[in-house]
């Protein structure tokens, strides 16, 4: 496990301007608000939080499907935040993404072969058709599919198989970093474990680095080396997996972890109820994002936003219960 951070996020912010209708005033949504973290080579960082807290937006900022509003994304020591597409192109094969919904992520009019061939051609990874076919077949095998699948269309596959195709498409360029945006959430529970196992073994075999996004702690726990907890566009706590499981500090994290579902889909439903209603991401006010739901809140919590601070043992937390340093911005 390498030590140097392959990805470094510094004070990254994304603001969306949305209009609800022709005559309504514009609103601003800030799903990613001044976040910072690092991922080291070979590591898997799990990003958890409730649905709508900004995880997907973070992932898309990293693969540059979205342009950051401010802050920096440093990949392999190079600032790619505002890099032109032409220049960025050479990084594209290194940074791949796997989406949540395997039914939407594959072009229904393309066969598996065509889907996998596309990145090879875009990045000129093979020099002739034989090589191309060989690589495609090899990759399919790596994700647990067979040669007979190669000429089929996505609709001929089950959800798990489709997600395997999506994973194959992500790894075929031999990337260094893969954003996995809830890769198992859309799948049946029985299939989830297979895909998780596949992802873990691929990570080892291909020496990949992951940003693993999920709202489901039980899944994140399974794969992550480090875990970052996100709430309302901010990272409120971050530490190694063991540290955070044994010594969770932030009141939100506690709430979240206490509601870890036992692997029974019926109990899962309680998750959201326990957390109460999620406050809005629009027109963010100063103060701790969790202040409305926090039972430990202090006066200062209403006024200024706590910064993410190292409280020792590489354990970062943004809460005035552990430090009283105000965030500058």
């Amino acid at each position, binding site marked *: 496990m390498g030590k140097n951070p392959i990805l470094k996020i510094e004070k990254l912010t994304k603001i969306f301007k949305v*209009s609800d209708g*022709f005559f309504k005033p514009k609103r601003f949504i800030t799903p990613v608000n001044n976040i910072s973290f690092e991922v080291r080579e070979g590591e898997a960082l799990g990003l958890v939080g409730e649905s709508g807290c900004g995880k997907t937006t973070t992932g*898309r900022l990293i*693969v*540059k*499907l979205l342009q950051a509003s401010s802050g920096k994304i440093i990949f392999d020591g190079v600032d790619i935040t505002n890099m032109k*597409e032409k220049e*960025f*192109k050479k990084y*594209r094969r290194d*940074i*791949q*993404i796997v*989406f*949540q*919904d395997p039914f*939407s*992520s*594959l*072009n*229904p*009019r393309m066969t598996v072969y065509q889907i996998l061939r*596309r*990145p090879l051609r*875009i990045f000129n990874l093979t020099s002739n058709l034989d090589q191309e076919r060989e690589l495609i077949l090899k990759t399919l095998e790596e994700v647990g599919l067979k040669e007979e699948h190669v000429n089929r*269309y996505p*609709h001929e596959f089950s959800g798990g198989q489709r997600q395997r195709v999506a994973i194959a*498409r992500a790894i075929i360029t031999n990337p260094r970093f893969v954003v996995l945006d809830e890769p198992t959430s859309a799948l049946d529970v029985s299939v989830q474990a297979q895909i998780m196992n596949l992802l873990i073994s691929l990570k080892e075999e291909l020496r990949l680095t992951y940003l693993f996004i999920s709202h489901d702690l039980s899944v994140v726990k399974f794969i992550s080396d480090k875990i970052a907890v996100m709430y309302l566009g901010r990272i409120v706590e971050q530490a190694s997996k063991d540290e955070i499981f044994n010594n969770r500090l932030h009141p939100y994290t506690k709430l979240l972890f206490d509601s870890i579902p036992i692997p029974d889909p019926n109990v899962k439903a309680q998750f959201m109820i326990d957390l109460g209603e999620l406050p809005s991401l629009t027109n963010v006010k100063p103060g701790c994002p969790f202040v409305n739901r926090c039972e430990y809140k202090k006066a200062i919590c209403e006024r200024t936003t706590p910064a993410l601070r190292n409280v020792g043992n590489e354990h970062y937390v943004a809460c005035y219960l552990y430090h009283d340093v105000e965030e500058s911005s």
Partner: protein
Amino acid sequence: MLNFIIRRLLLLIPILIGVSIVTFLMVHFIPGDPARILAGQNATPEDVLAIRERFGLDKPLTVQYFMFMKALISGEVKSLRTEKNVMEEIIPRFLNTLQLSILSIIISASMGIFFGIIAGVKRNTWIDNLVMGFSLFGVSMPVFWLGILLMLLFAVKLGWLPAGGKGTWKHMILPAITLGMATSAIIARMTRANILQVFHQDYIRTAYAFGISERKIIYKYVLKNALIPVVTIVGLQFGYLLGGAVLTESVFGWPGVGRLIAESIFTRDYTLIQVGVMFVALIFVLVNLIVDFTYAILDPRIRYGQG
């Protein structure tokens, strides 16, 4: 696929029998005695009775239905109004409707798809708003006013195009536009909606993530996928058009099948209404079949071989 087509064609038989019963009942339950109406004002009582007898209108309904079906099967149904074979009335009118519908669907599909693409690609910009605004206007503009306005401008004022009637290709332009206005608006909206939907698909995001140029993504991935469902909409709209558009046909004096059926309803030409409606239903179902078939060819997800 062949299996599928045969099954769908066989399904036509019960559909047509159903349509024949429903139209028969509806026709006979519209108030109005056809004999009285056909005789016209200034008819003697004998005239009215003679017409009733001549067409068997004095017989019980079930007998009339079987008489009608018998005549239908032997292809000898006669219009009460003109006493010509109904097919002789319907076919030429239908061919006229077909001509107009083809031109109209070409115009409205090309305009609708073109503007739908523009709106979809430039979604949420002023261009999109403008196109969608126009399409709202297009669906809500009454045919009567649009038709009259077009004729006032292009026929009476400018003299470029004829004011209604049938003759050269020029006669078809204004009615085709009028007829296609609403259709093109509908197609534009559907096209736009489909494009937006495809833009939200992750395989499009993947394409962006691979750094493929926006242009290429739009042409190669978005349009290809977004336009498949548009085929269905265009096909369905075409099916509707083939039923004839009474208003447009009246305003432009276009001798189409819609006007024919409407007129036969007003004159209670029972036989013509029944065969006319059955014919239009048959065409509609066939067009749908063709559309489904085309869709199956275009979209690998749909296979009709089994199930």
